[in-house]
């Protein structure tokens, strides 16, 4: 029972970490970054390289954020910027981008599966149940990411401009806010968050050039259903992640793998605007 609850909480945390970057981009720019998966991959390979160079594992997410953020900003500058008026084309272009990144990673690191050691190993006893300490650490990480992001959005000048752009971009521009810059930074942060997610989940899974893809659809559905707000994203992760764990445990793992996509699709049919104002 306790294991089940912990499974649900940690799964929700992992889903939240993986989708946060996508949400940031969708919330501000109203486009869907299908290259999100490859930024997760970039983060994972950054962690891999960092561990090969003997960097302390605590630093891996930070390095991943920098690498992912810079590549993301470059991608925004070169590709995404042209497509703000064409949201469906932006999906396609970012998908193309993910093909390119995936192939570059393959060319650089080879196709084979690789492993990164976890920074903390072993288990932690909670209510007399032993549970993987790294998964528990990810819950903390999810809260840190949510906290930092809320601080950035509500406590800084950049956050104020960003919120202005979200609400009314034309007006924001008219007031002298450089919305192009806001978008550039947002896209960079979104990609950086994806890279952090990649670095954080690698110790749980293996690293290969297509690893991000399996996370993409789940993250995408969660973001759509959350309607662009961070607290609702957390809630969606908890509810749908919880149902996923329950379905995998009690029915079948394959059905569990479909839970998020199918339930989110049905929920969106009933409530197309998402659950941001629920």
């Amino acid at each position: 029972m306790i294991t089940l609850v912990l499974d649900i909480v940690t799964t929700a945390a992992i889903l939240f970490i993986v989708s946060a970057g996508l949400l940031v981009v969708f919330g501000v720019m109203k486009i869907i970054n299908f290259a999100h998966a490859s930024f997760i991959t970039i983060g994972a390979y950054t962690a891999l390289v960092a561990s090969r160079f003997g960097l302390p594992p605590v630093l891996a997410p930070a390095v991943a954020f920098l690498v992912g953020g810079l590549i993301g900003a470059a991608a925004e500058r070169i590709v995404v910027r042209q497509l703000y008026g064409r949201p469906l084309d932006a999906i396609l272009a970012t998908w193309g981008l993910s093909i390119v990144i995936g192939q570059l990673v393959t060319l650089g690191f080879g196709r084979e599966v690789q492993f990164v050691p976890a920074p903390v190993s072993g288990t932690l006893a909670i209510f007399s149940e032993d549970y993987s300490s790294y998964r528990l650490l990810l819950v903390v990480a999810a809260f840190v990411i949510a906290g930092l992001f809320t601080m950035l959005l509500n406590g800084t000048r950049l956050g104020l401009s960003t919120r202005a752009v979200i609400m009314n971009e034309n007006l924001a521009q008219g007031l002298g806010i450089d919305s192009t810059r806001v978008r550039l930074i947002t896209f960079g942060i979104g990609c950086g968050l994806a890279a952090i997610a990649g670095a954080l989940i690698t110790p749980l899974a293996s690293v290969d050039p297509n690893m991000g893809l399996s996370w993409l659809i789940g993250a995408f559905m969660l973001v759509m259903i959350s309607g662009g707000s961070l607290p609702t994203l957390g809630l969606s992760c908890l509810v749908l992640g919880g149902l996923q764990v329950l379905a995998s445990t009690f029915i079948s793992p394959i059905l569990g793998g479909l839970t998020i996509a199918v339930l989110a699709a049905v929920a969106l049919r009933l409530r197309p605007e998402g659950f941001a104002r629920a």
Partner: protein
Amino acid sequence: MPDLGSALWSHASLSLPGLPRALVRVAIPSLLAAALVVVGPWILDTYTLNILVRALFVAIAALTVDVLWGYSGTLTFGQSAFFGIGAYALAIGFTQFGFGPWQALMALGAAVGLAAVVAGFVGWLSFYPGSTPLYASVVSLVLPIVLVQLLYSGGTFTGSSSGLVGFESFDLSLENWFRLAGGAVLATLVIAWIALSSDAGRVLGAMRDNDERCTYLGIDTARVRIALSVVMGVVAALAGFGYVGFSGVAAPENAGFVFGTQLVVMVALGGRGSLIGAVVGALVIEVASAYLSSSLPFVWELIVGVAFVLVIVVLPGGLFGSLRDASAAMHPRLRVLLGRTLSPVSLATLERTAPAPDRDAVVVEVDSVSRHFGSLSVLSGVSFTARQGELVSIVGPNGAGKTTLIRCLADGRERSEGAVRICGQSIGRLSPDRIVGLGLGRKFQAASVFETLSVADCLRVARTRSERPSLIAASPVLALPAAARAVVESSGLAERLDQEARFLSHGLKQALELAMVLALEPQVLLLDEPTAGLTRAERQGFAAVLTDLVARERLCVLIIEHDLDFVRRISSRIILLHQGRVALDGPVAEIVDDPLIREIYTGSTRPKQAGVTP
């Protein structure tokens, strides 16, 4: 679409002149291609033939993506799922029951039936009044993922992750497979070309350009899109059926999300909205992948990725789209060859088909209609009636609820409380396209037309509800009701019938939309600030058209207007909305001099002739 046969016959005589020319234009290239398909096996080596047969079946799936995305505007990643359904129907059928003519027929039936049912269900999920294109794309993403998971969990029945292999299949020589696949592509191309350039095919373009306008022209776009999904799902399933019949292997990759995106990449590179482009894109990518993936394994995919991004950003029309634009710019004659119809259109007038109405019947009854947004009440207890031959102006300051009132009349799901009857029938919770059927036409505030369609095509689409369009022929005659024709001729649209709507001036777009709405032969006409942004001359022309409609056609016109002089000149009655309630309702002379009007329009807080409502 049901009633296909009868519609086809009733129009055959009318549209025959359009047929031979269209046939000639398809016939020559198709004969050339057919010759290539027949001769091909003698020229090409076995390896190339092998690859080409697969590529040709993939090209059919790419064609379905092109029709859905390029023509009707639904970006789909899910056609791979239907390809997979066809593939696995054959593989499972032959593995379980062995090979034989009956088994083949059964498998084919299963492929078609299952694809149709799944497509119908997915279509129902994706398309509903008010659905967004993004949602349809989301559902199309989920479909292949669900299907692949089901295949994985199917054990020996589906072959799980390794797929099904080693079943006995059709005993055809490689040469004949090539001819079969080539013939199938050609047939799909020709049928698709004829259907898409027919009168019915135009409706797809109209839905892509402006789904809302289609709905308010009485077209049930959700139903059309679902029907189209079913047809395209079945075609993709047939392609998958052929693919596995030839290759003898059905793998989960044939149904997966990645294959679905590859189909989109092929169409994007070849040119969305160009049938030849989709086929060429599919063939080039499939064949080049087969040759280059062994010599340059990762670099090849890198090149495809870069090319894809470049095309989306720089050449959204793809290779053939850009080719068409470029050649059209250089040689107007070449344009005809490359697919755009430029037939001269002749105007005709339709007899009024609606029964001669009572001259003074009440056609609009609004009974204590309210509209709340949360705790904000925009309309509360609005009641009035309007008769035929009345021109009622609805005036009021910004935020009085004028546009909301129009919305509540035209869409049954808008109002929170109250009842609305149009021509004596309650609108209940009907969707806009059904309310159009009761006799209501709505012109939007901002001109809403089909940007990439020609003026004549915009008007034809407006007639879709009353005359089911032909699926094979494109009529050269544009038959319009007298009122619509009068607007077309007086505004100068008659000289621009073959021009694309996006090149029209603001005033002409407004006139076009009015003509489109009048083509519906409505009894009640809703106009939301039709004269905003028009010149003085255009306004006067508009006033003349309106008063004429009311006097001669006995239309009931409800018009939202800010310009009190204009209102005074044209109206028979004025309703003043103020803070969501009917403040005044009466003849023009009484209302314009009412102190409340003065206070609202000329008082200290508002300048005369307040601006545009949001």
